[in-house]
């Protein structure tokens, strides 16, 4: 790093320019990552926050992907799942979109309908609903207040959780209250499974569940269902998969751009320095030594640029957090920054290969 650090100081204008580019790309990637996480949370948190190991959906027709909107699990299948070996609980949930209102205030809400007394939302009973914090804020209600849910009159039993589904705040209601005619629907959208831990030596370490995948697959085959982990089930939320796919593509493109920009910069930089590299080789610098020096220089540039960009993104995220669904936590801040550094280093490494081909003989200008 002897020459690298002095180059950084000497050519600080050029490196500041490049560091600024890295910082701006980092700002974009981190904010996009935070927005992706925030939008994903608004789409899926009602599912990811469920106290369940896995979800059971109706098996899709051949060639089609599972979808919450198409899933319907009849009572017979619900009961069959309850008595499957290794299954501690299989709680049916019917998912629907509805409108809630109180006075002049109205809000579109996602309704997760469960049987009264369901462990998923113990406070729910006929005529009593549980609102997420965001739903309660949108309607300006608190526990004990009354409201209209899909035309039915209900009382707020509790306000808890931050769940959202398909960008609508979550409301837990009884199956009767979720139905326009007051009749509890017989079919569920999905079953929230809680499996018995540690009952099977082939337990899936990834989920911590005590029933193995083969047993679940066998049950699925018999009952016409599809069991998914919570993470895998998110793709069955139509709006999530399309939205998340687009945002992830944008992130991937930004990562690729950053690697290319860093690589291009160091390609030009190395070409400009080829005379000095030849001198250093002529006076006894090994190629490995020069590569270490140059990669160290790239690392300093990348760390400084990403730190600046991440700090700016965190500040902007904190400023607009209430208005924009941005989640800025360790994962959305550190992971993009570290990925950018790794990809930038990869781009620089490719560019710096040119160092290996510099001939020290060229330091003697008249040698050939």
């Amino acid at each position, binding site marked *: 790093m*002897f*020459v690298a650090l002095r180059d950084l100081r000497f050519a600080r204008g050029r490196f500041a320019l490049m560091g600024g580019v890295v910082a701006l790309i980092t700002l974009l990637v981190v904010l996009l990552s935070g927005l992706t996480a925030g939008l994903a949370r608004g789409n899926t948190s009602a599912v990811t926050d469920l106290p369940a190991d896995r979800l059971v959906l109706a098996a899709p027709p051949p060639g089609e992907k599972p979808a919450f909107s198409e899933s319907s699990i009849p009572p017979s299948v619900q009961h069959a799942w309850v008595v499957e070996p290794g299954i501690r609980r299989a709680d049916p949930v019917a998912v629907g979109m509805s409108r809630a209102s109180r006075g002049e205030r109205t809000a579109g809400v996602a309704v997760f309908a469960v049987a009264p007394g369901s462990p998923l939302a113990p406070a729910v009973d006929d005529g009593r609903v549980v609102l997420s914090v965001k739903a309660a804020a949108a309607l300006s209600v608190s526990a004990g207040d009354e409201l209209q849910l899909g035309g039915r009159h209900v009382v707020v039993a509790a306000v808890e959780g931050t769940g959202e589904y398909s960008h609508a705040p979550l409301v837990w209601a009884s199956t009767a209250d979720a139905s326009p005619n007051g009749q509890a629907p017989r079919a569920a959208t999905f079953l929230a499974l809680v499996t018995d831990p540690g009952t099977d030596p082939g337990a899936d370490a990834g989920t911590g569940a005590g029933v193995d995948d083969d047993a679940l697959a066998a049950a699925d085959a018999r009952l016409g269902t599809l069991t998914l982990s919570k993470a895998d089930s998110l793709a069955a939320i139509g709006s999530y998969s399309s939205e998340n796919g687009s945002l992830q593509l944008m992130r991937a493109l930004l990562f690729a751009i950053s690697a290319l920009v860093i690589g291009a910069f160091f390609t030009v930089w190395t070409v400009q320095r080829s005379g000095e590299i030849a*001198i250093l080789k*002529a*006076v006894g*610098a090994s190629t490995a030594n020069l590569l270490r020096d140059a990669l160290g220089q790239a690392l300093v540039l990348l760390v400084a640029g990403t730190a600046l960009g991440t700090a700016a993104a965190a500040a902007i995220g904190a400023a607009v957090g209430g208005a924009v669904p941005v989640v800025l936590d360790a994962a959305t801040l550190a992971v993009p920054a570290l990925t950018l550094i790794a990809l930038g280093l990869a781009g620089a490494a490719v560019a710096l290969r040119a160092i290996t081909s510099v001939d020290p003989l060229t330091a*003697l200008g*008249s*040698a050939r």
Partner: protein
Amino acid sequence: MTLHLDSVTLTYPDGDRRLTALDRVTLVAQPGSLTAVVGPSGSGKSSLLAVAATLIRPDSGRVLLEGRDLAALDDRDRTTARRDEIGIVFQSSNLLASLTALDQLLVIAHLAGTPLDAARQRARDLLDAVGLAGQADRRPHQLSGGQRQRVTIARGLMNEPSLLLVDEPTSSLDTERGLAVLDLIRRLTTERGLTTVMVTHQRDHLVAADHVVEIVDGRLAGGMTSPSPYAAGAGDPATLTPARGRDAS
């Protein structure tokens, strides 16, 4: 250490054929002596220097430094030899733009793995020896041509080499500054017991040499090293120039 080029032949590709840059060149340079290699442009004198510096491997022949054949070493060992045993003084402007005069020397210590604190005093002493004690913190663009060349000489001595190879050291300097640099090389060769080989095309510089070798079309004219016709005053810098001493720039 004695440098012995033993029947060295070097060829370059030149279209469909090969151009002979050095043709069975044999030369011996002794410690404490300055051997000047003189010849017209394209005669092969810089090729000779490149071979001696291990920057290029000859097609045949040996490059013996105190009996060890440098031409037979692999790339890594040749790099190590340049780092530890050979000092090279390039033509002017071969300094690193971002480094101060002091750093130009310290980078050599850094490459050798020498702690910089320990090397700093030696670097300052060398800058003092070449008359640049007050210019240690200046970068190349803040130095004159003569000062830059003296930094290059000091850098060539930083690794305490036994062999000093000097390539056209005055090519970009005016007469007065050129003679001052030549004076310095002559003096350091004697004081430090260096085996110095200097390539030059300026015959008026031969006064500094103990031996002169003339090379024409890749061959030594007149065979091996011969005493310089000007060697009577060699070793006495006073004979080199009426304007001897420090570069005034």
